[in-house]
């Protein structure tokens, strides 16, 4: 028998959206951080494992990757954190016009970075099929590129949504704030990869 | 206690009586003796723990209980909670203690095994292939090294050091009567030490799945008195004898000039292929095809006529032979002692 209900509280005055860990999607985003972070961590482990086998790093007759494209990319992505933080604060304050403008700015910056990323691939000075060093370096760059591209598409979609009437909903501002949080994860994971692709081969050889 | 004596007896039976030619319970080498002792300790401790758990379980099932309201704690229950909590702590401590004992025993056994080899070992190099063992006996004097395949002869009481490599995929060298296993990994070199203490005939088998015919990659091991080993080694160093009868000579001609010599080597002839087992002393081995057939005239016929029938997919192709060719080849191979 189902016990009779005894009314013990009212939920109708609760709000329907909140920022940070009170939001359900925040937990989903954190979970994705953990998943992708673990994937990166395992890739880093594979990088160091392969590096410790007997070979040069890079192997003989291979040069380390060219620095220009990668360093420019790094500078640009670090700078992009400024509009990104502004975007997060604007979303938390519900400032729709500012959010719209900053989203478009982020989309544009990311396009520039995508171009730089293409140049990075072209200046690795090794093919993925040359040796294990080439394979892991391409893998790291490709994993991050996929990461980056996915967040770019998310940002594009959000920019679109915020320009429609849906943009007025409180929950959409939460989505924008969380996407900004995700962007931080994108450049935070980039920093060690930058060092591993561009600098460790220079220090190790 | 009767139970304890029965237990000890069955343990002895288990460890001694279940030993065959490919058995981890055979104590035919130093490593096997240490294993046997360690296994007995682990078995005793784990069995003891298991019996306690089962006893507690049975007590829990068959215990007589008084009346009490469902799901609600009562006064007696409170004190039972306390004694159960003490029991839990005691049990956790007991497990930790038991595991420590076992861990220490394991480390000690490991050290003992590491020391079980000994100075001046016999050095052998094994390269594993899909699905046969290439065996090379080393020596300081290069003219005293020789190759064989799918077998080991070892002098009793002499430590052996085997270097393990692989030509293709991961295999595992395992002669359970003598020692545990060690993988052969392409691109790496591993080592295993043996120290046989009992004469006998044993069998090893590849113990890492290595493809289609992993099940048919056995190794014949003979542990013999030192003098017999020396005789065997001297014989192995000799080149193949010259064939005497016309049939055998016809066989040699075929082997040298047709398909066989492209893969196999026979020292002292023009057959010098390096990718298949060396056949110089084939007829002195116990089995054909890494344990696929026992060595006999009939099985030689069967193998040469169609190696694919008993070991399909192995690297020796089926070569259609005329009857006289087959007779000649087998007649020649039989001279290779």
């Amino acid at each position, binding site marked *: 028998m189902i016990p009779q209900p005894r009314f013990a509280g009212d939920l109708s005055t609760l709000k329907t959206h909140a920022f940070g860990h009170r939001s359900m999607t925040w937990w989903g985003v954190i979970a994705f951080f953990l998943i992708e972070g673990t994937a990166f961590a395992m890739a880093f482990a594979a990088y160091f494992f392969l590096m410790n086998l007997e070979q040069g790093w890079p192997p003989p007759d291979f040069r380390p990757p060219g620095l220009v494209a990668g360093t420019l990319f790094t500078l640009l992505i670090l700078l992009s954190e400024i509009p990104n933080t502004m975007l997060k604060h604007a979303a938390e304050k519900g400032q729709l016009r500012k959010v719209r403008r900053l989203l478009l700015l982020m989309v544009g910056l990311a396009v520039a970075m995508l171009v730089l990323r293409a140049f990075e691939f072209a200046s690795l000075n090794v093919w993925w099929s040359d040796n294990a060093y080439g394979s892991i370096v391409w*893998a790291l760059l490709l994993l991050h590129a996929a990461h980056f591209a996915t967040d770019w598409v998310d940002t594009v979609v959000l920019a679109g949504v915020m320009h429609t009437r849906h943009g007025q909903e409180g929950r959409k501002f939460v989505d924008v704030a969380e996407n900004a949080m995700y962007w931080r994860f994108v450049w935070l994971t980039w920093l060690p990869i930058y060092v591993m692709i561009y600098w460790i081969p220079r220090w190790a050889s | 206690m009767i139970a304890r004596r029965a237990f000890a007896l069955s343990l002895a039976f288990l460890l001694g009586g279940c030993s065959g030619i490919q058995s981890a319970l055979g104590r035919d080498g130093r490593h096997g003796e240490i294993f046997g002792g360690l296994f007995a300790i682990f078995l005793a401790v784990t069995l003891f723990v298991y019996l306690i758990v089962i006893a507690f379980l049975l007590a829990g099932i068959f215990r007589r209980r008084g009346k009490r309201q469902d799901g609600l704690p009562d006064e007696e229950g409170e004190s039972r909670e306390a004694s159960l909590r003490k029991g839990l702590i005691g049990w956790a401590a007991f497990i930790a203690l038991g595991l420590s004992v076992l861990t220490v025993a394991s480390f000690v056994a490991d050290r003992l095994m590491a020391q079980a080899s000994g100075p001046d070992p016999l050095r052998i190099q094994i390269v594993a292939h899909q699905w046969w063992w290439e065996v090379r006996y080393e020596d300081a004097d290069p003219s005293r090294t020789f190759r064989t395949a799918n077998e080991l002869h070892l002098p009793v009481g002499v430590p052996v050091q085997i270097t393990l490599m692989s030509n293709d995929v991961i295999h595992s060298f395992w002669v359970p009567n003598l020692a545990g296993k060690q993988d052969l990994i392409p691109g790496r070199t591993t080592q295993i030490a043996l120290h046989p203490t009992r004469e006998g005939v044993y069998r090893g088998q590849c113990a890492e799945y290595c493809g289609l015919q992993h099940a048919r990659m056995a190794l014949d091991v003979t542990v013999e008195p030192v003098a017999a080993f020396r005789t065997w080694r001297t014989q192995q160093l000799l080149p193949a004898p010259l064939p005497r009868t016309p049939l055998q000579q016809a066989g040699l001609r075929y082997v040298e000039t047709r398909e066989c010599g492209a893969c196999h080597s026979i020292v002292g002839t023009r057959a010098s292929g390096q990718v298949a087992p060396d056949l110089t002393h084939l007829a002195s081995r116990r089995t054909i095809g890494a344990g696929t057939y026992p060595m006999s005239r009939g099985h030689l016929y069967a193998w040469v006529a169609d190696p694919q029938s008993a070991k399909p997919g192995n690297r020796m192709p089926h070569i259609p032979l005329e009857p006289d060719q087959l007779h000649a080849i087998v007649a020649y191979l039989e001279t290779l002692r």
Partner: protein
Amino acid sequence: MTAKISPRDHDRDGEKLQGEALHFRLEKTWSREPGLWGWLSTTDHKEIGRRYIVTAMIFLALGGLVSLLMRLQLASPESGLISAQRYNELFTMHGTTMMFLFAVPVMEAIAIYILPLMLGTRNIAFPRLNAFSYWAYLSGGILLWAAFLLNIGPDAGWFSYVPLAGPEFSPGKRTDIWAQMVTFTEIAALAVSVEIVATILKLRAPGMTLARMPIFAWAMLVVSLMTIFSMPSVTLASGFLLSDRLVGTHFYNQYEYGDALLWQHLFWFFGHPEVYIIFLPAAGFVSEIVQTFSRRPTFGYTAIVLAIVAIGLLAFGLWVHHMFATGLPRVGYSFYTAASMTVAIPSGIQIFCWIATMWDGRPRFQVPLLYVVGFVITFVLGGLTGVMLASVPLDLQLHDTYFVVAHFHYVLVGGSVFPLLGAVTYWFPKFTGRMMSERLGQATFWLLFGGFQLAFAPMHLSGLMGMPRRVYTYPEGMGWDLTNLLSTIGAFIVALAVLMFVVNALLSMKRGQAAGANPWDAPGLEWATGSPPPVYNFPHIPVVTSRTPLWDNRAKLPVMTGLRVDEREQLLTTVIDARPDLREPSPIPTIWPFVASLALAALFVSSMFTPWAVVIGTPPLAAALVAWFWPKSPDVTPEPVIE
């Protein structure tokens, strides 16, 4: 006298809207369209959970059939029944199906169904992701089995070591299919894990603090976090394998500075936690069953929870014990021996607590509790052989022999399948509204238990007597004939028992004794609603004041009211104390998760044949995902006005 009803009152449950009237409104809001379109677009966790469970059970049957063929071949020495190639495919399919398509998914499946009910909420978190994950899982399973039936099934073993599984020694599509199946199932498992973590942390009933949460929920929380931290490793490993095979990378190629052992490390870093991911939910089942059938709260709640967490953490430090024979430095091995031994301590603590619950309670030995007893007897034995295998000198003899096969079947079948069958019997009345046959269930249990021991106990001996794993045949005269024959007979008895279980379930669905809401007089929240539950789970959100809510609130169950009834709405509570915090809309049915899974399947399957598939296949997937997340409602529902 009825108070004046304001417009707002019609939209919320409560004193003025309860009983039949409330049921009618909630059912309308939470139902989906009937028919195929509705079935493809559902977001109801119960419906998705049911399809997951059924699918996983089908894979159990397929994996089991394959093992029967293996046992037929091994029943006698030098048997010519099955060829080497076919046998190698069979053992690969058996392990792969059981580990990737049955063991983990079935645990997740039951969690998907029962957790929201256990926690007192209306749906799982991220329901569209839930729907999507099922289709991804199904795609992986179909890919694998279609390949096997088309004679291009994988044959390199369920852990697919390189270089054997690499491009040189496994040409063709077989291993590509294995690796891509792994990708599908890992995506599904990761998605479900995200949902479970979010559900457990944010959707619990008010008052259900973490310390009052059912032990099964703790188990699933730990398991989901373990999944999140371990599955990326195997996804990376299989991705590297696919790229070595398809586009010429050299991760595992020692000739170009790669290493075969990289595969083993990446795989077993996942593989070891994987077996605890399979065991811990079963530990959760045992905790729930033992509580209900001993008629007292589980003894040592805190100890069990801490033990679960400890196992979850320790599991990540053991993986090298699968690699003791690979020649790594001996000093390093000592650490893994010690860690592998240590994990027996929390396991032992749990066993004590469960037996203590029975000892101190008043157990009724109905079928679910029988499975718990069978679990203790079998799993503990398997755990003890595991302690043996943790020792390097012992492992170097026993590794890759039938001793290990015996060990892991004892812990996996004893430790997970027995509790699973007990749990299915236990929750069957909740899922279907009918009881399974108790008599048939008892007979099934004894047959299964006996058959299992007969099948697997002799394997300890075969292994000690030198029989290696993964051999399609063995010579006469090795002393292995009798043990193999006994194992084969036992295997068929197990199959018969499983068949009996299935027959019991099917017959009971039609003709089983009708079950009320709480036929076992159990304490959990899932028993505070109908059997089967209404589509909205609970008419009012229950409030919890202890670990055994229904035992402490037999007459009246405290509830909170005020959620909308015309929109799908759930309650978010705070993470630790479960105080009511926010109202969260729950997504309505949508076809996009299904469409996205089709795009995903097309992308993954075609990318085994050409790298261009990644370029061509990504835009449709992206489009489906955008459509999925694009906000739906044509009329924007304004935020409720707080008065």
